């Protein structure tokens, strides 16, 4: 129940610069997800907020106090670890009560809070068990319960679902979302799984090489990525990238020349935005869902071309179709019924309204 501020935060290990001066404001009661590939500094950032790592330079504020030199025990923060980190020698009840006991909470109050949390998480019957006797999903619940009972200012999650199998992961994801709605508090959630970040977070922070690439709502991250890295990291399957040249299409319009044979017209309302890059080598980015067999009747900005299918991956609702343009593999998303046998040519429609143009000089989206 507090805002968190990170100011010019640095973390340097012996040789590695894990976090290189990041700035971030996390609002009161906000659910923030830190995502990025392994080694991007997201876990280090989380551990600095928790107080488990010393800060090399910069400042962390929780609420209105600077916590740089506050030991973890006095930060009023709870954390759920990837491997759950349950105390193996205590029962579920004692695991959850431990933090409260240390804070000298009265017995009745501890009991009330533990049972409340157990209710929320549906682990009422497990209170007398030991962690060893629990399944992965149950342990996960206990780990969250331990955090909930404390009613801390800030909740930290360090890849909490990575050790669960796929089905349980989806289930727990929903669960976490529900719990956050009930137990309104500030959450910082670290994950390498962009789907988790998209589904859970109010805002997403994408990190790469110790720097923040972009901060924004899931919608912003998906529809308006600011860098090539964010564009490729968010969304699955990943966005397609093709080298192209911005050329003039006559009448003041612009087109992207992908190959000698294939050029795609840029929608007129975007022409002004891209004009300064005329006659330059750029990168064209388009998500698989925007290359499709669907041919809308109305609207503008749809371009068509034909390509030979190389690999087909049926996924149920849709079928992923892979083909290549100039040796670069492209993925498209088509209706299963529209997909013919592999090797055949198939017509595709590109929704150019959803395109992204990336400047290869700085990998930023124009």
């Amino acid at each position: 129940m507090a805002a968190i501020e990170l100011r010019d935060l640095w973390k340097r290990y012996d040789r590695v610069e894990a976090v290189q001066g990041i700035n971030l404001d996390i609002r009161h009661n906000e659910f923030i997800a830190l995502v990025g590939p392994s080694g991007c500094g997201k876990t280090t950032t989380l551990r600095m907020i928790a107080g488990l790592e010393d800060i090399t330079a910069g400042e962390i504020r929780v609420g209105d106090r600077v916590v740089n030199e506050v030991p973890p025990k006095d930060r009023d923060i709870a954390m759920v670890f990837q491997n759950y980190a349950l105390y193996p020698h205590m029962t579920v009840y004692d695991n959850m009560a431990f933090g409260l006991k240390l804070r000298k909470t009265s017995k009745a109050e501890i009991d009330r809070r533990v049972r409340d949390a157990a209710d929320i998480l549906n682990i009422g019957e497990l209170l007398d068990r030991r962690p060893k006797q629990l399944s992965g999903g149950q342990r996960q619940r206990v780990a969250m319960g331990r955090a909930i009972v404390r009613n801390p200012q800030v909740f930290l999650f360090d890849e909490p679902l990575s050790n669960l199998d796929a089905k349980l992961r989806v289930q727990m994801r929903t669960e976490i979302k529900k719990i956050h709605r009930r137990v309104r508090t500030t959450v910082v959630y670290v994950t390498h799984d962009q789907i988790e970040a998209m589904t859970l977070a109010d805002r997403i922070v994408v990190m790469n090489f110790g720097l923040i690439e972009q901060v924004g709502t899931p919608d912003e991250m998906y529809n308006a990525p600011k860098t090539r890295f964010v564009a490729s990291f968010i969304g699955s399957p990943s966005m397609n990238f093709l080298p192209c040249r911005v050329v003039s299409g006559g009448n003041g319009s612009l087109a992207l020349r992908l190959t000698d044979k294939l050029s795609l017209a840029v929608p007129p309302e975007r022409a002004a935005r891209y004009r300064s890059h005329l006659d330059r080598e750029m990168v064209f980015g388009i998500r698989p869902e925007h290359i499709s067999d669907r041919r809308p009747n109305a609207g503008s900005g749809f371009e068509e071309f034909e390509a030979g299918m190389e690999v087909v991956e049926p996924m149920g609702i849709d079928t992923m179709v892979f083909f290549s343009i100039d040796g670069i593999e492209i993925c498209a998303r088509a209706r299963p019924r529209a997909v013919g046998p592999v090797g055949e040519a198939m017509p595709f429609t590109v929704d150019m309204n959803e395109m992204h143009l990336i400047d290869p000089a700085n990998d930023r989206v124009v």
Partner: protein
Amino acid sequence: MVAVTNIGRAEARPPLSVRSRLRRSVGPDIDGYGFILPSAIIMVSLVVYPFGLAVWYSLSDAFIGQPASFIGLDNFIYILTVDDIFPKVLRNTLLFAVISVACKVFFGLICALLLQRITTFKRFFRGAMLIPFVAPTALTTLGWWLILDPTYSHINWILKHVWPFSEMGLGPYQFLADPTLALSSVIFVNFWRGLPFFVITILAGLVSIPDHLYEAAEIDGASTWDKFWKITLPLLRPVLAVVILFSTIFTLADFNIVFVLTRGGPMNETHLFATYSYTYGILNHDIGLGAAVSLFLFPILAFTVIFLLRLIRRDTAYEL
């Protein structure tokens, strides 16, 4: 409202507490020094200091109850040139360590392989094997002393009374009075005591080799013999190296068995560094010579450790 600028290195903030400046220079956990302090005090005053003292004694003419003065390397020169027992000590120590460790490796490996295949009475068999290692050495060696005693020897009794040995006219042997037999006996008892360590450790190493490797080898057409040479032995090498390291060190420095069984005799033929150093330092009160003899052990130990540790380092590259 959201600052995403990553520009520039943060400037150091001026107010830093003494504690956090300390943390910056020695690491995040300063209290670690407090934790190791008690053990450090004990180790320095009771291992490091005595070790230095041993070096000083070896360079002096220290004698029990008399002030010592520095005499340089005289003790070492005396041991190496005048003392005619010391070469035997060297020889014995080497024979003792090499033969007994080699036997322990060989029989330990066989016994571990046998134990691994056992399903019923597993605990009993494993448990019984380890008893010689946990029982007090001095006392069990006294048991062997009876077994090897010239008059009461059980072995001699068998040779005399049990067919077919009774027909061969062997013995009675003076196990502890004949120089060669005495050294063999001492090595034998050391083998008896040290074998369990090898068996149990090698067994643990065998168990840690994942089954799927053997299954993969079987599918590739490997015989039992192939599996032993191509999978078991290579993967066991790090374990073997560690066991050999420890066993060699403790065998080289052994005191109890020789002292109880022969006291270095007959005619100083079975002395090891430890017993010989005891003879000089305690029985003859010549602390200088005693310390010098025991210090000879140190380079041998250091060499063994470095040599074997190298082997281990190279071997633990396997990830199971």
